[in-house]
């Protein structure tokens, strides 16, 4: 299974909804439209010549400068037979970060989607229990979004004079 073969079969199936094929950091990657994430991952899972049946990682990245596609949800998939890994990216706007859940296909997506919701606020529609998993339940913000100052501005004990800055 080569990168060109994966690109060919996906382009034939989904057309312009899949683009940006590249190999970065040793893993073949591409972008998909967020509306078709279930269809693409189901196809990658079912198609015998691809059979990416293991979801190794699911997370998000916040790109504050990208208009209307600030939050990039990243799926890492693994074909255990061919030992081939791919990365699937789907970008959603931060104003309405809705994307369909993958828990129906991969049970491992359950906790990883909760974690992604916890830190980035991605709303996985259809998730059975989308609540915070790591942070305190009372937290009312999403800490890994790049929209906060580096230090807690409410602190009074670390003033600039004492820390030489």
């Amino acid at each position, binding site marked *: 299974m080569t990168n060109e073969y994966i690109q060919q079969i996906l382009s034939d199936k989904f057309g312009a909804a899949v683009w940006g094929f590249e190999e970065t950091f040793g893993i073949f990657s591409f972008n998909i439209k967020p509306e078709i994430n279930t269809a693409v991952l189901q196809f990658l899972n079912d198609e015998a010549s691809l059979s990416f049946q293991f979801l190794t990682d699911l997370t998000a990245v916040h790109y504050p400068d990208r208009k209307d596609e600030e939050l990039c949800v990243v799926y890492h998939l693994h074909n255990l037979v061919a030992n081939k890994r791919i990365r699937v990216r789907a970008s959603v706007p931060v104003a309405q970060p809705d994307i369909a859940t993958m828990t129906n296909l991969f049970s491992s997506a359950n906790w990883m989607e909760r974690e992604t919701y916890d830190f980035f606020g991605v709303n996985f529609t259809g998730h059975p229990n989308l609540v915070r998993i790591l*942070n*305190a339940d009372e*937290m009312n913000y999403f*800490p890994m979004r790049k929209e*906060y100052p580096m*230090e*807690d501005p409410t*602190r009074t*004990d*670390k003033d600039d004079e004492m820390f030489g800055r």
Partner: protein
Amino acid sequence: MSRPVQYNTNNKPAVIPEGYSGEGFMATKMDQLVGLGRSHSLWPLPFATSCCGIEFMGTMGSNYDLGRFGAERMGFTPRQCDVLLVAGTISKKLAPVLRQVYLQMAEPRWVIAIGACASSGGIFDSYSVLQGIDQVIPVDVYVPGCPPRPEGIIEGILRVQDLVKAESTRRRNHPRYKELMESYGIE
């Protein structure tokens, strides 16, 4: 050749409280006598979450031997203990647990914050870490260091002993103590 085993020749006996003494008797204040007894029978409750906890284990071990100072017995239940030793980073999610442990301790109770994390959050200036345990419970002694050496932790215990000796028997009736507890929302 010098002796292979070294031992402490500078024994310091417990300081006798001020009072009036004569042939076969001594009169002193009850507070001071009770304070002297309490200060040398502190039961520590370790609340160890990270590397400061390892240093605390060294402090309790035979090399440094906290037992010499009258804190031999660690009790792993807050209901039996006198002094809470918070050694390590306390995340915001753990803060209610720490507070619950403190509330379960019976009066009189003291708290030592061991290390930079327990005292101020340390290097973890982060969304998930409590910036010092004094945000949720009152602290008597802060031990600096990252982590502090066992000598530092022993020094902290000795400072708590000084506090214990100087306090009245029923500290909880003192108006300033009540005010402090109210500022933390503790009955």
